[in-house]
């Protein structure tokens, strides 16, 4: 991309990243949450990829690492649901019980509050960031060209 796009992207990408983290962490206090925050974080990486090319973006966040983040986020969210069942086995446990809020209730309108909800927001944000970035990276790797009258789809991992 041109110099203008690169310069603007360099200035803006930090703020986008910060806003994504804010949306994720303050999901239980302000509008937003894990899903929106994760997509905003993925947008920051997509902006880097569009402005500076695939190789530079993969040096920041390799698509295999993003794939791992996707899986790890899913497993952690499931663990959060099962953990409450295990810890509160004696008194009325169910799937995704808010076990932290039950034992140590926080003060409303404070950051450390609401038990498992901020943790769930963080985990979902990481998961969604990985998933959206992997989707975009995979689609950007696919090349389409005509070969002997047929259309060929090919995926290349290296920057040529």
């Amino acid at each position, binding site marked *: 991309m041109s110099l203008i796009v690169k310069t603007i992207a360099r200035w803006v990408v930090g703020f986008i990243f910060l806003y994504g983290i804010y949306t994720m962490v303050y999901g239980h206090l302000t509008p*937003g949450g894990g899903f929106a925050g994760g997509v905003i974080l993925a947008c920051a990486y997509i902006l880097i990829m569009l402005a500076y090319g695939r190789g530079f973006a993969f040096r920041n966040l390799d698509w295999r690492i993003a794939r791992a983040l996707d899986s790890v986020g*899913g497993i952690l969210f499931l663990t959060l649901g099962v953990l409450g069942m295990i810890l509160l086995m004696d008194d009325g446990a169910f799937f995704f019980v808010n076990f932290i809020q039950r034992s140590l209730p926080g003060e409303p309108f404070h950051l450390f509050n609401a038990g498992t909800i901020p943790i769930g927001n963080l985990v979902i944000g990481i998961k969604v960031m990985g998933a959206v970035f992997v989707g975009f990276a995979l689609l950007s*790797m696919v090349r389409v060209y005509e070969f002997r009258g047929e259309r060929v789809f090919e995926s290349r991992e290296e920057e040529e």
Partner: protein
Amino acid sequence: MFELLALIIIFMILAGILTIETEDLVSAVVSMGAVGFGLSVCFILLRAPDVALTNIVVEVVVLILLLRGTIRLGEKTVSGHRDLAGLVSGIILVILFLIFGIYAGVEFPRFGEPGFLRFEDSASWYYLREALSRTGAVNAVSAVLLDFRAYDTLGEIIVLFTAVLGSIALLRKKLKRDKEQ
């Protein structure tokens, strides 16, 4: 506010018609984006900033993906005649939707009047009343998504995970087959 909402909805309908009628793929993608952003403005006017934020963010990503997809695939325009069977079935579907929509709309509560107040023990009213005291989360939407209805969120996550898994499997398989040849 109702008039403004109606104006935005008319704009969205026009943009939707343009999306399917235009032959240029890039302008189709752009007018589809206009539909999405109009929807986001509607959500903001209806005081649902949570949904508006998520919608606008996903809309941006989808717009980038589709634009890049249309440019990458190398096809700038589409042309072709509409077949009669599709047109007729589409018109029949629209008429049926209108009839049943009018029947359903009679039962709706009036605009701006919360429907859950009709019933004392409705689930949405319970969530709004008890969200702060039971979960401690000020944002009721977050409380519903991650506490009352966390199981739904798990399903959503599984859908996303499966989509990524499927796209990785398909595209990687293509790569491997290309290397063998």
